[in-house]
């Protein structure tokens, strides 16, 4: 595969973004349909090229792409290039296929929006940045993509920026992920610091022509505490991007963005970038046992922690958001145990069924004008297609065979089971509890949304619709209807994938694992016991949800009584938002530390006052200034002249001597 073709995967959507933003919007107006054509066409090209790339890697052709030195100072020599291996090929196909389907779906969802072209500009930009991230053969280039997907996420969460909640959510998402990036950046600096003296640091991930590169030599060249810290820094960056505990709080709020954005960015691709990152750097983690254990524990904890909040949310997108956090936790759990294959396999399957569920929720919103499941109900009759695909997605997520979610979750359960020891046991229990909760919350959502009687949709919405006309989200409601074909067909395709995407790793062939073999993945045998335990947990969850919500109940009074404190804790999201925003940022920093420093800095405080009075002219400055402020410019000019005269005089006297 020629290098130019690989670069084109990135360049095509980038060109579409530039074209849309700089030509179409100014010349053809903000709602021109050309925006759609350009973005879909470009991503279509990327998709075809990605399939080509996959087939090349699949047939075992060695793809070595050159590196280009773009800056060199001393021992620092940045060499930029692209890396095409099994991991990249899988990510390419996931990103381009989901993106393509989401763009098509968006036409139905966004066609009445006044910023239609802006939407497609940002979506194309995101796709390009995400492809850069996965294709980069250089840590710095990867970081560039990493930050740019964060930017696009910011721009798209805040797409309807006149809504204060959207503006706040966008900001929150960027800042919290940036907090993770802080440690990621420190890890990059650490690699530079600890790199062996006599070898130039190129930051190339894999460089056949260099004496050392990060992936082959990184783990061996950098050892000890330094390596552990570097790995933890990488994990912190990944935790921010993938919304893992304790940096998960931004993702539920990010649901303020248009729903197709949530499907693409906040379910299938960008949030999986953290998993991709750790997977990419697994050779480093292999030498850092402590770091790996921490990765596994963060993942395992997040599985249950996030799923528990998903159980009580009434906003369908928030249920899905917590579900995403929880499912990503499974992937980190697997990576922490060194299981590259299962983690990526779950990423692959999850991308399709979660995108499907999100698009389903968008379709429901299209019909009812709300995301509040308490106002839905009974939609299966009017929206049979949406109901059908959502049902398939739910079964896949709940891990019911033969749907795709079962196969990858089973592999992860099996890994934890056979890992054994205290760590393995803890992780296995967490994973099983998570499986139970997953099935329970998604079927609760399914029943609340589609079963029982219709409860009125947007018309019943009691609160703030001030901007209702601005946004698409709150248009319909009174008489729900099935969504147009342009929305249904992408969902139907995703539904097929939610059923069958696991065929790529069919137990007899495991093509998927073969792709990753050069990176250290090996075939996982199906283990009956953990698979059965996981399945039972899932069925139990479905059973409980059925018992409580089947009839279309909005809340389940039988459990809310004694469990009220627990429900409250979950509804308030364990008070993490209060801790971060209320206590740390507002109370400690803004009201106290920063306020003190601002006072400290001022002329009423210490620094300005002290420097003023200690200064050469200081004693008179205060007085002089009062004179100046009275409007006597003369006075100030006098001071200026005196100063100048002194200097010139000093110069003449001293200078003349030489």
């Amino acid at each position, binding site marked *: 595969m020629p290098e130019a073709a690989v670069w084109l995967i990135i360049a095509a959507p980038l060109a579409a973004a530039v074209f849309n933003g700089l030509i179409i919007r100014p010349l053809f107006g903000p709602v021109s349909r050309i925006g759609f054509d350009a973005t879909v066409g470009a991503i279509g090209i990327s998709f075809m090229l990605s399939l080509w790339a996959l087939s090349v890697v699949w047939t075992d052709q060695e793809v070595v792409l050159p590196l280009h030195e773009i800056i060199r100072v001393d021992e620092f020599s940045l060499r930029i290039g692209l890396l095409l291996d099994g991991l990249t090929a899988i990510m390419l196909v996931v990103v381009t296929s989901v993106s393509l389907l989401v763009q098509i779906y968006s036409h139905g969802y966004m066609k009445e929006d006044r910023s239609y072209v802006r939407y497609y500009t940002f979506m194309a930009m995101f796709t390009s940045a995400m492809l850069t991230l996965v294709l980069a053969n250089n840590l710095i280039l990867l970081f560039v993509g990493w930050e740019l997907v964060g930017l696009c996420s910011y721009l798209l969460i805040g797409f309807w920026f006149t809504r204060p909640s959207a503006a706040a959510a966008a900001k929150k998402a960027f800042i919290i992920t940036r907090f993770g990036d802080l440690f990621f950046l420190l890890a990059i*600096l650490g690699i530079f610091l600890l790199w062996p003296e006599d070898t130039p640091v190129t930051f190339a991930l894999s460089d056949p022509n260099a004496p050392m590169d990060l992936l082959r030599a990184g783990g061996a060249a950098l050892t000890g505490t330094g390596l552990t810290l570097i790995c933890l820094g990488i994990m912190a960056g990944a935790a921010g991007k993938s919304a893992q505990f304790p940096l998960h709080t931004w993702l539920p709020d990010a649901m303020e963005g248009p729903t197709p954005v949530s499907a693409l960015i906040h379910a299938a691709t960008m949030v999986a970038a953290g998993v991709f990152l750790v997977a990419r750097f697994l050779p480093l983690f292999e030498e850092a046992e402590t770091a790996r254990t921490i990765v596994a524990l963060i993942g395992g904890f997040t599985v249950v922690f996030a799923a528990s909040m998903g159980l009580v949310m009434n906003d369908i997108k928030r249920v899905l958001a917590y579900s995403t956090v929880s499912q990503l936790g499974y992937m980190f759990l697997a990576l922490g145990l060194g299981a590259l294959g299962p983690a990526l396999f779950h990423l692959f399957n999850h991308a399709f069924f979660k995108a499907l569920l999100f698009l389903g929720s968008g379709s429901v919103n299209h019909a009812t004008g709300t995301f509040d499941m308490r106002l839905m109900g009974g939609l299966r009759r009017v929206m049979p297609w949406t109901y059908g695909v959502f049902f398939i997605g739910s079964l896949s997520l709940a891990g019911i065979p033969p749907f795709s979610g079962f196969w990858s979750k089973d592999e992860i359960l099996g890994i934890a089971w056979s890992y054994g020891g205290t760590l393995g046991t803890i992780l296995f229990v967490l994973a099983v509890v998570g499986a139970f909760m997953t099935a329970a919350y998604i079927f609760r959502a399914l029943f609340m949304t589609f079963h029982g009687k219709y409860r009125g949709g947007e018309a019943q919405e009691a609160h703030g619709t001030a901007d209702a006309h601005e946004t698409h989200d709150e248009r319909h409601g009174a008489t729900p209807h099935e969504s147009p074909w342009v929305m249904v067909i992408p969902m139907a395709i995703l539904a097929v994938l939610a059923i069958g995407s696991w065929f790529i790793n069919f137990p007899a062939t495991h093509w998927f694992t073969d792709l990753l073999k050069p990176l250290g993945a090996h075939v996982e045998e199906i283990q009956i016991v953990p698979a059965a335990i996981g399945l039972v947990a899932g069925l139990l969850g479905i059973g409980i949800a059925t018992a409580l919500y089947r009839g279309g109940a909005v809340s389940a009074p039988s459990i809310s009584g004694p469990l009220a404190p627990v429900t409250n804790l979950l509804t308030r999201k364990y008070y993490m938002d209060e801790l971060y925003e209320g206590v740390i940022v507002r109370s400690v*920093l803004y009201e106290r*530390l920063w306020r003190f420093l*601002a006072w400290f800095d001022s002329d009423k405080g210490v620094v300005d006052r002290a*420097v003023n009075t200690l200064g050469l002219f200081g004693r008179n*400055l205060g007085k002089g200034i009062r004179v100046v*402020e009275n409007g006597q410019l003369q006075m*100030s000019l006098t001071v200026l002249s005196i*100063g100048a005269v002194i200097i010139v005089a000093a110069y003449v006297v001293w200078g003349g001597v030489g």
Partner: protein
Amino acid sequence: MQPFDGLITLIVFLPVAGAAVIAVAGREQMLVRRIALGAMILNLILATYAWLSYSANGPIIEQLGQYGSNPWIPGVNASYLLTIDGLSMPLVFLTALLGVVAVLGSWHVKERVREYHVWLLMLLTGVQGVFVAGDLLLFFLFWEVELVPMYFLIAMWGTGHREYSAMKFVLYTLFGSAFMLVGVLALRFAIGSFDMGAMTLAGQEGTLRAAFLSMDVIFLMFLAAFAIKLPVWPLHTWLPDAHTDAPTAVSVLLAGVLLKMGGYGLIRINVGMFPSEMEQWAPLLVIFSVVSILYGAAVVFRQTDLKRLVAYSSVSHMGLVLLGVASLGAVSVTGAALQMFAHGTITGLLFLVVGIIYENAHTRHIPDLGGLFSRMPVVGAVFVFAGLASLGLPLLSGFAAELMVFLGSFDAYPWQTAFAVLGIVLTAGYILWTVERVLLGPLKERWNSVKDASPADFVAMALLVLPIIIVGVYPALVADVFRDAVTLLVGGG
């Protein structure tokens, strides 16, 4: 391309020549603006020409009078020596570019337009002179020349407590100059002439010795002057006042190039001529830089005046320059120089945009603003762009500079740098919070008739947006030039 005789002289004195023409012939406002704009555009063309010539042939030197035999000022053995090397070149270009932007950004100035432009152009000559002076006496003179125009520009065309702020600016700078003068004279006696090249050579060889002052003292004298100018905490308090009260174009120049005189001096003189003293004092300077970065960022959060907010962010970002310089590696000092260039365009743009908002909304009080994006899509988009550049978004110039500074300084001072890196989160926090409060949310009714950018504003913004993107995508364009000079001073490969 070959440099022609008098190229640098022309670059330096073209603005003041423009000022002279305006003083004589500038009877109409529009004519004044056109002359000023013409002079600065020509200046920018010459600076570009100089850059091309530098790329082809290396440093450019212009001299009138030799040291020793036939000096320019015989009594003191000074020479009219102007040089453009790798360290000067991008800064000269930056000054010319911001000069054009400043004239365009002054399109709305309506009072005493003629005098205003005379001062503005004189200021630009002073700044260009500092960056190209090869003779320490000239350096000092240009350094002082810039004060008078600044005083009048702030005191007469500013807002708020403008006279207080103007005076404060002058006094702080003069205070530093007094120290610097002692240093200048001490070096003159040490070397027998004002030849900065000879001083650097002796300094690098370790043979620079002064008769009656220890090298440490001389080093600190220069440091004081440059640290005030940069500014470094706790000598920064003149900056927020001067910025807040200065007219838009002057804020642009102040942030864009005047602060860079401090960074330039640090690299050219403190690093170049005092390598061993620099090494000795560096650990302390690193601490001051980290304090500047974090303290500046923390104070930003409490600001309610949009300009004052940007001014404090400048304190934080210039702390990065000091961090890079004090880390004394080829990578870090090149990064610091690149950060000067990047900060000049980015913060210049921020001040420009804030000025445009102020011009249209007549307030900079953040709680009064809100939702402006709906009425000012172009200005809003540029504001967000500049903000993203300021918070170090990749592919914009600030990122490359920040990364190089951090890479270099982490090598030498890992723990201090780790604290400094915290700044990237704080910066993201205050930038996005400011964007939210000023631009996002529902449009407040009182802003229903606010206008978007005028054509002059638009061109001025575009002139800064372009270099931010170009340098961001291909930082080597500027970094390689800086590196040529830096590696000679810090010794690396």
